């Protein structure tokens, strides 16, 4: 049984209220940080912890904080990215609705460390019910003196706002999020300048994921070194995984990084195996934007070692035989899944969500979707398969923001690992276009 650092009290009745949360040790980190530590010491603890961004990119949080420009007399901002909307990823929503005070505690402690006097939680527009939960919790924190002027008599002031977005996936990209927060169309900005130098309202800004900020109280309470003891190598601490798809027990699991993927899928403590006793066909391990891997490669690396739930192990083999930990959106697909249909479905999403600002993404995502639509509906040609790879390559790395990659990677990986299935959609077009049709295996191609 792994340690639960963030979700230990998630099932305690009334934990969403200040009173119950406080009774279970809530807001200790705020007291500890503000009363006994300098902001730089808090940053140092986060650095020591080895915490890496839980939103998908996995960049070390402490290092990101230390990049923050600190010009005299200029406000700095902390913005929490709560615009979770990657298909397959739903961990932040749960964390915020069940443990709103954990996020608020993290925001206060982190804002203190960064010297921010105004902080924002930018939340996805569709999560209005979570917004209300957070607003209620913020009001409680203000009433208890943990927010507002002169927090705990320390002279430190902090205002915390929750800001709902319009419900666009692109607003989860940090610079598009800042544009949206400023009241503009959520188009990503060109980088440089990076938000750490010129972020919200052109001021130095740190943008962190909900889960990253929620981990800060634990790190401050326990100490960075203690936190770093959990996990494997550079993948320290615990991580929330939102498991979905054809699993017996889909749900949100907090695991210690380093758990074997096989154990995560098959042990009763976690996902409990594949539903209806079927076989696993493929897994998307970190939200729909990361490369899909077939069973043999998700359970073992190409070198035959057990694949672990860590940043390094999941990406072992690069994109040829590996994938990414991403945001932890773990989508399992059983043997009845049509990979072409699934890829088309992902592509529809990215086509719909592209902001349209830069040409490769604006035109390329639509192109991918249309070719996949053709293949899935029995109108594809053999050369379409290479066309998909080529178009994905034209998008990847050439766009303003990573949405281009998010659209290109799943397509390129699906063709890489399941090319025979794509070919079957051409050679057996009529059969493949039937609703629910599934590739029966390589034998039919022989």
């Amino acid at each position, binding site marked *: 049984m792994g340690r639960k650092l963030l979700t230990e009290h998630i099932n305690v009745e009334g934990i969403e209220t200040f009173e119950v949360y406080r009774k279970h040790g809530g807001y200790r980190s705020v007291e500890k940080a503000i009363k006994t530590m300098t902001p730089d010491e808090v940053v140092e603890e986060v650095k020591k912890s080895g915490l890496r961004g839980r939103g998908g990119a996995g960049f070390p949080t402490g290092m990101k904080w230390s990049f923050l420009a600190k010009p005299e007399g200029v406000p700095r901002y902390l913005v929490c990215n709560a615009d979770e909307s990657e298909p397959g990823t739903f961990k932040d929503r749960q964390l915020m609705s069940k443990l709103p005070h954990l996020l608020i505690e993290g925001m206060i402690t982190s804002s203190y460390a960064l010297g921010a006097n105004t902080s924002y939680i930018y939340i996805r527009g569709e999560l209005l019910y979570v917004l209300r939960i957070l607003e209620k919790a913020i009001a409680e924190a203000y009433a208890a003196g943990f927010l507002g002027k002169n927090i705990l008599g320390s002279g430190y002031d902090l205002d915390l706002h929750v800001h709902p977005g319009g419900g666009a996936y692109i607003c989860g990209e940090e610079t598009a999020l800042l544009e949206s927060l400023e009241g503009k169309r959520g188009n990503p900005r*060109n980088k440089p300048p990076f938000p750490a130098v010129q972020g919200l309202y052109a001021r130095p800004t740190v943008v962190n994921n909900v889960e990253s900020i929620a981990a800060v109280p634990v790190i401050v309470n326990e100490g960075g070194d203690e936190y770093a003891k959990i996990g494997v190598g550079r993948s320290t601490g615990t991580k929330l995984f939102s498991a979905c798809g054809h699993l017996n027990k889909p749900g949100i699991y907090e695991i210690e990084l380093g758990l074997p993927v096989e154990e995560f899928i098959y042990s009763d403590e976690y996902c409990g195996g594949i539903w209806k006793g079927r076989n696993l066909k493929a897994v998307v391990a970190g939200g729909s934007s990361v490369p899909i891997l077939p069973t043999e490669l998700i359970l073992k690396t190409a070198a035959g070692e057990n694949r672990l739930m860590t940043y390094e192990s999941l990406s072992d083999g690069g994109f040829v035989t590996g994938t990414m930990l991403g945001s932890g959106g773990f989508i399992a697909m059983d043997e009845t899944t049509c990979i072409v249909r699934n890829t088309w479905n992902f592509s529809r999403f990215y086509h719909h*969500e592209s902001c349209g600002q830069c040409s490769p993404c604006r035109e390329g995502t639509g192109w991918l979707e249309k070719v996949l639509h053709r293949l899935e509906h029995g109108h594809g040609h053999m050369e379409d398969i290479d066309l998909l790879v080529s178009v994905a390559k034209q998008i990847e790395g050439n766009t303003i923001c990573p949405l281009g990659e998010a659209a290109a990677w799943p397509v390129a990986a699906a063709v890489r690992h399941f090319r025979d299935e794509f070919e079957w959609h051409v050679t057996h077009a009529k059969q493949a276009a039937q609703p629910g049709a599934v590739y029966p295996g390589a034998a039919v191609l022989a």
Partner: protein
Amino acid sequence: MAKITFDGVEVEVPDGTTILNAARQIGGSIVPPAMCYYTPLKGSGGKCRACLVRVAAGSTKDPRPMPKLVASCVTPVQDGMVVENTTSEQVLNVRKGIVEMLLINHPLDCPVCDQAGECDLQNFAFEHGVSTTRYQEERRTFEKIDIGPLIQLHMTRCILCYRCVYTADQIVKGDRVHGVLGRGDAAEIGTYIENIIDDDFSGNVIDVCPVGALTDKTFRFKQRVWFTKPVNAHRDCPKCSGNVVLWYKGKDVLRVTARKDEYGEVKEWICNECRFEKKETSDWTIEGPAHIDRSSVISANHYELPVLNQSVIADLPESTQRELEKNPPLKLG
């Protein structure tokens, strides 16, 4: 100052200069193409990705190559930076891809498009693209939008460069009513564009449009641009600088535009009165033939006579020699 190496050529530029502008200081054919960047428009650039280059070394301090290609129009130089443009096969391949992407929803109706001959996309595709497309799907089309008697909006040809949006934001006065609606390949220039048309400087959207999406209704289809003769002229205008180019066909002024530099960027904005209402030679003080230094069919017509030296002239037929001596712009070497 920062010293950078661009395609093997060293150039020293002030700190904060973008890679593209550093390349422009070198000039010539190694300058990356730009479809959306426009120096006079603040905030433009970074969108079309036509100007992507490879940074083989970030700076003297950190000589590592940048992991991805960067948009040269918005990336500032660093001292010691090494940039590859025409020398990088990767860059040239990506550019082929960008042309293909841009031409997905831009119709190839150059034979009837009024922008033919001075279309940046036409030049970009000619220099970097391939003659075939792999796109088989239906292309996007739009209902026609009437935006008044002076400017024609053809959304079908728009490549979403945002230049007209920045023009409306920065040049045209009044409330912001012009922007981009929708997203992805369904994005389009806002229908409220008609609300900016009454402004005295709205005609500048025609000059900044790199393709034929915004054209001059008072000139449309009157003449192919390469059959007209550009002449620099000025007038005493209370609203703008009054420095323009008159496009002649015979004795008639068919069109008035702002003067542009070698990268097709407007040097000085002109007002609608100069652009649309002053089409008589008597309205203007003529300065002489305009120099169109762009890689397009316009400059192929050689409106300026080449600088010839005496030995070349000596080989010309007598009648031509007499004609050349009579022609004032000729510089005899």
